[in-house]
């Protein structure tokens, strides 16, 4: 499906979504509240079938945290990018690990690196950071580690 088709299709599914087409792929901005039901629709809709979540990450824009989901369909070979802006002080979004199993690991990574709280995640624990890690989330922009970070 081409960008335009995808856009009309998705606009049907979620009228509240806003689009951005400057990039290579169609970018869709959804609110965290809409995300879970929208994700289910993306995965299971006959004409979309986004079954391959190939990248899940988060960006710290200093004013907010933005979750970025890169989705692809192994049937139709179309790609979209979903973005969701979270409150930086209390970032919360629904987990999609039961829709795409790969999200379980990726969400754990984002959880510890950015402090995003994934609601209803089956096993939200530290994955990479050592047990008992306290303090800030390393990938946030305001993280400072005076011991290990070398300023160039």
């Amino acid at each position, binding site marked *: 499906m081409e960008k335009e088709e995808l856009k009309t299709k998705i606009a049907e599914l979620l009228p509240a979504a806003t689009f951005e087409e400057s990039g*290579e*792929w169609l970018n869709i901005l959804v609110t965290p509240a809409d995300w879970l039901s929208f994700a289910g629709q993306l995965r299971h809709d006959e004409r979309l079938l986004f079954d391959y979540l190939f*990248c899940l990450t988060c960006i710290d824009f200093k004013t907010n945290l933005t979750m970025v989901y890169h989705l692809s369909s*192994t049937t139709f070979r179309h790609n979209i990018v979903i973005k969701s802006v979270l409150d930086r002080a209390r970032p919360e979004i629904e987990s999609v690990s039961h829709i795409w*199993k790969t999200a379980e690991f990726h969400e754990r*990574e984002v959880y510890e690196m950015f402090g995003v709280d994934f609601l209803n995640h089956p096993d939200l624990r530290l994955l990479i950071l050592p047990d008992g890690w306290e303090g800030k989330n390393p990938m946030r922009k305001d*993280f400072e580690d005076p011991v290990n970070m070398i300023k160039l």
Partner: protein
Amino acid sequence: MFRETEIVKDVSSIPPFPQDAVQGGGGAGDLIINVGPQHPATHGVLHLVITLNGETIKKVEPHLGYIHRSIEKMCESLTYRQFIYVTSRMDYLSAHINNHACALCVEKGMQIEVPDRAQVIRVIMDELTRIASHELWWGAMAMDIGAFTPFFHAFREREKINEIMEETCGARLTMNYYVPGGLRADMHPDFQKKVKEFIVLFKRKIDEYDELVTGNIIFINRMKGVGMLSKEDAVSFGCSGPAARGSGVHCDIRKLYPYAVYDKVEFDEILETGCDSLARYMVRIREMKQSVRIIEQLIDHIPEGDFQAKTKAVLKLPKGEFYTRVETARGELGVYIVSEGATTPYRIKFRSPGFSNLSALDSMARGSKLGDLVAMMGTLDLVIPDIDR
């Protein structure tokens, strides 16, 4: 010859594992062992907490981070020329391909036309890297299964590739040969001759691999029906590369989203439908032959011209987001750059193949024997720095 093991297909029949058991004592009859962070089968510092019932695996829980260097954070303070070299250290066995992904992403952002010569040499180098990586995997996996000799036989051929790399790139493992806009230097005058010699040698030796390992009845019995990963699961777990192609998922980035000159060469995407370890093994073995095929098509037709495009002294990506993906020896590597228009990336994300492939290990391993776990880890071809980044 031996009876095939009954793999527990229905994972849900295994009762859920109590969460507190990992921290303290296990349930009745459960044995919890730590495989790693230092263990001969993990090939690095991977830590798996395995719950066993006798020899049968009930749960595998990976603990990561022992070699986490936060390359993504590091790259935020490096310029677009500098950050490429760090990525060689992620999946050190396909260093060239990692660099290729980063160079492509910068080139996409800057809209640099890469000269044909550079593109062809890049593809040859990538394929050589892929062969070298698969060679090492083959030897290491055979060693996991218990056969020591193939490891040395694999290194003999890998050494030839390393020599070629050393001559052209000046290093054997972390080459840093690709720069945004092309190559750092032109290929070595002996490059073509050496590569052709290697191909002749490799074609002769690859049949020995089949004699030594592939046809061996013990090996086949160790691999067949072990580590089943269904096609749906492979997609859902985000698996890519040979791990997913062993389950019949059409996912070769070189075919789906061709980059460099992959759309101009003929090669087959290897698909196996066995879904088990043997299928993943066969994908890699056959993929090596396809890589040789690609190199053969290109090695005599390296176009003349510049090896590097003219670029500005200071690279500044325009504000925006750029995503490129390439096929490394392990699967799909995605490079996601968020630029604010500065000389350094604002945020960089490496979507590494190993991380997603590892997440499938738990569901693959449940219900099989401890000895199968090493076979599964072997055929997933986990490179730990790639997982941890």
